[in-house]
Protein backbone atom coordinates (compact mmCIF):
# COMPACT_ATOMS: atom_id res chain seq x y z
CA UNK A 1 0.00 0.00 0.00
CA UNK A 2 2.87 2.37 0.86
CA UNK A 3 4.80 1.47 -2.28
CA UNK A 4 2.25 2.75 -4.91
CA UNK A 5 1.72 5.89 -2.79
CA UNK A 6 5.45 6.56 -2.69
CA UNK A 7 5.80 6.06 -6.45
CA UNK A 8 2.84 8.36 -7.08
CA UNK A 9 4.09 11.13 -4.81
CA UNK A 10 7.72 10.88 -5.84
CA UNK A 11 7.72 9.79 -9.50
CA UNK A 12 11.45 10.57 -9.84
CA UNK A 13 12.31 7.66 -7.50
CA UNK A 14 12.95 4.44 -9.34
CA UNK A 15 10.75 1.48 -8.51
CA UNK A 16 13.81 -0.65 -7.77
CA UNK A 17 14.92 1.73 -5.02
CA UNK A 18 11.48 1.85 -3.47
CA UNK A 19 11.44 -1.95 -3.45
CA UNK A 20 14.83 -1.98 -1.72
CA UNK A 21 13.64 0.41 0.98
CA UNK A 22 10.38 -1.48 1.48
CA UNK A 23 12.24 -4.76 1.88
CA UNK A 24 14.31 -3.17 4.61
CA UNK A 25 11.24 -1.77 6.30
CA UNK A 26 9.59 -5.20 6.19
CA UNK A 27 12.71 -6.78 7.67
CA UNK A 28 12.80 -4.21 10.48
CA UNK A 29 9.12 -4.80 11.22
CA UNK A 30 9.84 -8.51 11.42
CA UNK A 31 12.72 -7.93 13.89
CA UNK A 32 10.56 -5.56 15.94
CA UNK A 33 7.79 -8.18 16.13
CA UNK A 34 10.29 -10.81 17.31
CA UNK A 35 11.66 -8.37 19.90
CA UNK A 36 8.16 -7.50 21.18
CA UNK A 37 7.17 -11.17 21.42
CA UNK A 38 10.37 -11.95 23.38
CA UNK A 39 9.73 -8.96 25.63
CA UNK A 40 6.17 -10.17 26.13
CA UNK A 41 7.50 -13.50 27.42
CA UNK A 42 10.06 -11.91 29.73
CA UNK A 43 8.18 -8.86 31.00
CA UNK A 44 4.43 -9.51 30.44
CA UNK A 45 3.35 -6.88 32.98
CA UNK A 46 5.23 -4.13 31.16
CA UNK A 47 3.74 -5.04 27.76
CA UNK A 48 0.25 -5.24 29.26
CA UNK A 49 0.66 -1.85 30.90
CA UNK A 50 1.98 -0.25 27.71
CA UNK A 51 -0.93 -1.62 25.65
CA UNK A 52 -3.48 -0.51 28.25
CA UNK A 53 -1.97 2.96 28.49
CA UNK A 54 -1.91 3.43 24.71
CA UNK A 55 -5.46 2.11 24.22
CA UNK A 56 -6.87 4.33 26.97
CA UNK A 57 -5.05 7.41 25.64
CA UNK A 58 -6.42 6.82 22.13
CA UNK A 59 -9.96 6.38 23.48
CA UNK A 60 -9.79 9.59 25.49
CA UNK A 61 -8.40 11.58 22.56
CA UNK A 62 -11.22 10.28 20.34
CA UNK A 63 -13.71 11.24 23.03
CA UNK A 64 -12.21 14.73 23.10
CA UNK A 65 -12.55 15.08 19.29
CA UNK A 66 -16.14 13.83 19.38
CA UNK A 67 -16.93 16.34 22.12
CA UNK A 68 -15.51 19.17 20.00
CA UNK A 69 -17.64 18.06 17.03
CA UNK A 70 -20.74 18.15 19.23
CA UNK A 71 -19.83 21.63 20.45
CA UNK A 72 -19.14 22.88 16.90
CA UNK A 73 -22.52 21.54 15.78
CA UNK A 74 -24.19 23.38 18.67
CA UNK A 75 -25.39 20.22 20.44
CA UNK A 76 -23.87 21.28 23.79
CA UNK A 77 -23.32 24.71 25.30
CA UNK A 78 -19.97 26.23 26.20
CA UNK A 79 -20.23 25.54 29.96
CA UNK A 80 -20.92 21.83 29.46
CA UNK A 81 -18.23 21.61 26.81
CA UNK A 82 -15.62 23.18 29.13
CA UNK A 83 -16.60 20.91 32.06
CA UNK A 84 -16.52 17.71 29.98
CA UNK A 85 -13.27 18.69 28.31
CA UNK A 86 -11.69 19.37 31.69
CA UNK A 87 -12.77 15.91 32.83
CA UNK A 88 -11.09 14.26 29.83
CA UNK A 89 -7.91 16.32 30.24
CA UNK A 90 -7.73 15.24 33.89
CA UNK A 91 -8.05 11.58 32.83
CA UNK A 92 -5.16 12.06 30.38
CA UNK A 93 -3.03 13.54 33.19
CA UNK A 94 -3.91 10.57 35.40
CA UNK A 95 -2.72 8.16 32.70
CA UNK A 96 0.59 10.00 32.43
CA UNK A 97 0.97 9.64 36.20
CA UNK A 98 0.23 5.93 35.87
CA UNK A 99 3.41 5.71 33.78
CA UNK A 100 5.33 6.19 37.01
CA UNK A 101 3.77 2.93 38.23
CA UNK A 102 4.98 1.34 34.98
CA UNK A 103 8.53 2.41 35.88
CA UNK A 104 8.09 0.63 39.23
CA UNK A 105 7.08 -2.59 37.47
CA UNK A 106 10.17 -2.32 35.24
CA UNK A 107 12.38 -1.78 38.29
CA UNK A 108 10.97 -4.85 40.07
CA UNK A 109 11.35 -7.00 36.94
CA UNK A 110 14.99 -5.95 36.48
CA UNK A 111 15.93 -6.52 40.11
CA UNK A 112 14.06 -9.82 40.37
CA UNK A 113 16.40 -11.17 37.65
CA UNK A 114 19.57 -9.73 39.19
CA UNK A 115 21.21 -12.44 41.41
CA UNK A 116 22.44 -9.92 43.98
CA UNK A 117 18.99 -8.46 44.58
CA UNK A 118 16.69 -11.36 43.73
CA UNK A 119 16.27 -12.44 47.37
CA UNK A 120 14.93 -9.07 48.50
CA UNK A 121 11.30 -8.92 49.60
CA UNK A 122 8.74 -6.43 48.24
CA UNK A 123 9.28 -4.00 51.10
CA UNK A 124 13.05 -3.94 50.57
CA UNK A 125 12.60 -3.51 46.81
CA UNK A 126 10.23 -0.58 47.37
CA UNK A 127 12.76 1.06 49.69
CA UNK A 128 15.47 0.54 47.08
CA UNK A 129 13.18 1.93 44.37
CA UNK A 130 12.58 5.11 46.34
CA UNK A 131 16.33 5.76 46.33
CA UNK A 132 16.99 4.77 42.70
CA UNK A 133 17.17 6.82 39.51
CA UNK A 134 17.25 5.40 36.00
CA UNK A 135 19.91 7.08 33.87
CA UNK A 136 20.87 6.74 30.22
CA UNK A 137 24.45 6.93 28.95
CA UNK A 138 25.83 7.24 25.43
CA UNK A 139 28.62 5.04 24.10
CA UNK A 140 31.94 6.17 25.59
CA UNK A 141 30.35 8.07 28.48
CA UNK A 142 32.29 7.89 31.77
CA UNK A 143 30.17 6.43 34.57
CA UNK A 144 32.94 6.40 37.19
CA UNK A 145 35.95 8.68 37.10
CA UNK A 146 39.16 7.46 38.75
CA UNK A 147 39.81 9.31 42.01
CA UNK A 148 36.26 10.51 42.47
CA UNK A 149 34.18 9.58 45.50
CA UNK A 150 31.35 7.17 44.61
CA UNK A 151 28.06 7.94 46.33
CA UNK A 152 25.72 5.69 44.37
CA UNK A 153 25.62 2.03 43.47
CA UNK A 154 25.42 1.86 39.67
CA UNK A 155 23.54 -1.21 38.46
CA UNK A 156 23.49 -1.91 34.72
CA UNK A 157 20.04 -2.46 33.23
CA UNK A 158 21.03 -2.70 29.57
CA UNK A 159 24.30 -2.44 27.65
CA UNK A 160 27.79 -3.06 28.99
CA UNK A 161 30.66 -1.25 30.68
CA UNK A 162 34.44 -1.62 30.64
CA UNK A 163 35.95 -1.21 34.09
CA UNK A 164 39.70 -0.54 34.34
CA UNK A 165 41.31 -0.87 37.75
CA UNK A 166 44.61 0.36 39.13
CA UNK A 167 46.19 -0.79 42.39
CA UNK A 168 48.02 1.42 44.90
CA UNK A 169 51.25 1.15 42.87
CA UNK A 170 49.44 2.38 39.78
CA UNK A 171 49.64 -1.05 38.18
Amino acid sequence: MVKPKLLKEYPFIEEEHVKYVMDEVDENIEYAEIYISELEGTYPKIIQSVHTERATTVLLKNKKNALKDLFDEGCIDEVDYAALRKEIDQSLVNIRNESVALEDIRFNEVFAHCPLFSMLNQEELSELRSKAKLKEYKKGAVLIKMGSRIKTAIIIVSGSVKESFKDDDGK
Partner: protein
Amino acid sequence: MFHMIRSVGCVLDAYDLTYKEDAKCEAKARNALKAYEIDESAITELINTNFEFKKLWFKALFNYCCHLHEGVEQIYDDASVRSIRKIAEHSDIVSLGNNQTFDVEHGAFLFQGQLEFSNTTQVKGSFITKPGTVKSLAPNTVLLNIVPPNRRELSRLPEREYEKGPSQ
Protein backbone atom coordinates in the same frame (compact mmCIF):
# COMPACT_ATOMS: atom_id res chain seq x y z
CA MET B 1 45.88 -2.49 34.93
CA PHE B 2 43.03 -4.93 35.41
CA HIS B 3 40.05 -4.85 33.03
CA MET B 4 36.58 -6.26 33.41
CA ILE B 5 33.58 -6.15 31.12
CA ARG B 6 30.46 -5.61 33.18
CA SER B 7 27.02 -6.41 31.83
CA VAL B 8 23.36 -6.41 32.94
CA GLY B 9 22.85 -6.86 36.70
CA CYS B 10 26.42 -5.90 37.70
CA VAL B 11 27.17 -3.29 40.35
CA LEU B 12 30.05 -1.05 39.31
CA ASP B 13 33.01 -0.57 41.68
CA ALA B 14 31.20 -2.04 44.68
CA TYR B 15 34.55 -2.12 46.54
CA ASP B 16 35.09 1.66 46.77
CA LEU B 17 31.40 2.20 47.47
CA THR B 18 31.54 -0.23 50.41
CA TYR B 19 34.72 1.19 51.93
CA LYS B 20 33.82 4.80 51.09
CA GLU B 21 37.12 5.25 49.28
CA ASP B 22 37.95 7.24 46.16
CA ALA B 23 37.39 5.25 42.98
CA LYS B 24 40.38 3.16 41.97
CA CYS B 25 38.74 2.35 38.68
CA GLU B 26 37.32 4.02 35.63
CA ALA B 27 34.07 2.78 34.12
CA LYS B 28 33.14 3.65 30.52
CA ALA B 29 30.04 2.71 28.54
CA ARG B 30 30.96 0.28 25.74
CA ASN B 31 27.64 1.05 24.06
CA ALA B 32 24.47 3.01 24.78
CA LEU B 33 23.33 1.86 28.19
CA LYS B 34 20.82 2.32 30.95
CA ALA B 35 21.67 2.01 34.62
CA TYR B 36 19.96 2.51 37.93
CA GLU B 37 21.85 4.69 40.39
CA ILE B 38 20.96 3.83 43.98
CA ASP B 39 21.92 6.00 46.91
CA GLU B 40 24.66 4.34 49.01
CA SER B 41 22.53 4.64 52.17
CA ALA B 42 20.07 2.10 50.71
CA ILE B 43 22.89 -0.41 50.13
CA THR B 44 24.36 0.16 53.63
CA GLU B 45 20.89 -0.39 55.11
CA LEU B 46 20.52 -3.68 53.22
CA ILE B 47 23.98 -4.87 54.30
CA ASN B 48 23.07 -4.15 57.93
CA THR B 49 19.60 -5.70 57.88
CA ASN B 50 19.66 -8.58 55.37
CA PHE B 51 22.38 -11.17 56.00
CA GLU B 52 21.71 -13.03 52.74
CA PHE B 53 22.29 -9.79 50.84
CA LYS B 54 25.40 -9.07 52.92
CA LYS B 55 26.82 -12.50 52.01
CA LEU B 56 26.32 -11.98 48.28
CA TRP B 57 27.58 -8.40 48.40
CA PHE B 58 30.87 -9.31 50.08
CA LYS B 59 31.35 -12.39 47.90
CA ALA B 60 31.01 -10.09 44.88
CA LEU B 61 33.81 -7.92 46.28
CA PHE B 62 36.23 -10.80 46.73
CA ASN B 63 37.70 -10.81 43.23
CA TYR B 64 38.78 -7.21 43.42
CA CYS B 65 40.00 -7.69 47.03
CA CYS B 66 42.31 -10.46 45.77
CA HIS B 67 43.67 -8.07 43.16
CA LEU B 68 44.39 -5.39 45.78
CA HIS B 69 45.63 -7.62 48.61
CA GLU B 70 48.05 -10.45 47.90
CA GLY B 71 47.64 -13.78 49.68
CA VAL B 72 44.99 -15.92 48.00
CA GLU B 73 47.72 -17.81 46.12
CA GLN B 74 49.10 -19.01 49.49
CA ILE B 75 45.76 -20.72 50.17
CA TYR B 76 44.86 -21.85 46.67
CA ASP B 77 47.49 -22.04 43.97
CA ASP B 78 45.23 -21.11 41.05
CA ALA B 79 44.56 -17.40 41.56
CA SER B 80 42.98 -16.68 38.16
CA VAL B 81 39.88 -14.47 37.99
CA ARG B 82 37.81 -17.54 37.18
CA SER B 83 39.02 -19.63 40.11
CA ILE B 84 38.72 -16.71 42.54
CA ARG B 85 35.08 -16.30 41.47
CA LYS B 86 34.56 -20.01 42.08
CA ILE B 87 36.26 -19.83 45.50
CA ALA B 88 33.91 -16.99 46.49
CA GLU B 89 30.89 -19.02 45.39
CA HIS B 90 31.99 -22.04 47.47
CA SER B 91 33.12 -20.12 50.57
CA ASP B 92 31.07 -18.80 53.49
CA ILE B 93 30.69 -15.26 54.76
CA VAL B 94 31.09 -15.23 58.54
CA SER B 95 30.02 -12.32 60.72
CA LEU B 96 31.58 -12.14 64.22
CA GLY B 97 30.82 -9.98 67.24
CA ASN B 98 33.46 -8.71 69.65
CA ASN B 99 35.54 -11.54 71.26
CA GLN B 100 33.74 -14.22 69.23
CA THR B 101 36.00 -17.00 67.91
CA PHE B 102 35.90 -19.03 64.72
CA ASP B 103 37.87 -22.03 63.46
CA VAL B 104 39.38 -21.40 60.03
CA GLU B 105 39.86 -24.64 58.12
CA HIS B 106 41.70 -23.66 54.95
CA GLY B 107 42.16 -19.90 55.09
CA ALA B 108 40.18 -16.69 55.29
CA PHE B 109 39.99 -13.14 54.05
CA LEU B 110 39.08 -10.26 56.36
CA PHE B 111 36.61 -7.81 54.77
CA GLN B 112 36.02 -5.60 57.77
CA GLY B 113 36.83 -5.39 61.50
CA GLN B 114 39.87 -6.85 63.26
CA LEU B 115 40.99 -10.37 64.17
CA GLU B 116 43.55 -11.95 66.45
CA PHE B 117 45.29 -14.90 64.84
CA SER B 118 48.48 -16.62 66.09
CA ASN B 119 49.07 -13.74 68.53
CA THR B 120 49.01 -11.15 65.75
CA THR B 121 46.33 -8.61 64.87
CA GLN B 122 44.86 -8.88 61.40
CA VAL B 123 43.18 -5.85 59.82
CA LYS B 124 40.87 -5.27 56.85
CA GLY B 125 42.38 -6.73 53.67
CA SER B 126 44.37 -9.50 55.44
CA PHE B 127 44.49 -13.10 54.32
CA ILE B 128 44.66 -15.84 56.98
CA THR B 129 46.75 -18.35 55.07
CA LYS B 130 46.73 -21.35 57.40
CA PRO B 131 44.19 -23.21 59.56
CA GLY B 132 43.62 -22.01 63.14
CA THR B 133 41.28 -20.20 65.49
CA VAL B 134 40.60 -16.51 64.97
CA LYS B 135 39.16 -14.15 67.57
CA SER B 136 37.25 -11.02 66.63
CA LEU B 137 38.56 -7.78 68.12
CA ALA B 138 35.74 -5.62 66.71
CA PRO B 139 31.95 -5.63 67.04
CA ASN B 140 31.26 -6.18 63.36
CA THR B 141 33.97 -8.36 61.84
CA VAL B 142 33.21 -9.89 58.44
CA LEU B 143 35.38 -12.56 56.86
CA LEU B 144 35.29 -15.00 53.99
CA ASN B 145 35.95 -18.50 55.28
CA ILE B 146 37.65 -19.96 52.22
CA VAL B 147 36.52 -23.34 50.93
CA PRO B 148 38.57 -24.28 47.86
CA PRO B 149 36.34 -25.61 45.07
CA ASN B 150 36.77 -29.03 43.56
CA ARG B 151 39.53 -28.88 40.95
CA ARG B 152 37.71 -31.05 38.43
CA GLU B 153 34.64 -28.87 38.65
CA LEU B 154 36.82 -25.82 38.14
CA SER B 155 38.35 -27.16 34.92
CA ARG B 156 34.88 -27.65 33.41
CA LEU B 157 33.89 -23.99 33.82
CA PRO B 158 33.32 -22.17 30.53
CA GLU B 159 35.61 -19.22 29.92
CA ARG B 160 33.85 -15.90 30.47
CA GLU B 161 34.07 -12.94 28.10
CA TYR B 162 35.96 -10.71 30.50
CA GLU B 163 38.57 -13.41 31.13
CA LYS B 164 39.55 -13.32 27.47
CA GLY B 165 40.62 -9.67 27.80
CA PRO B 166 43.91 -8.23 29.08
CA SER B 167 45.25 -10.06 32.11
CA GLN B 168 45.78 -8.52 35.54
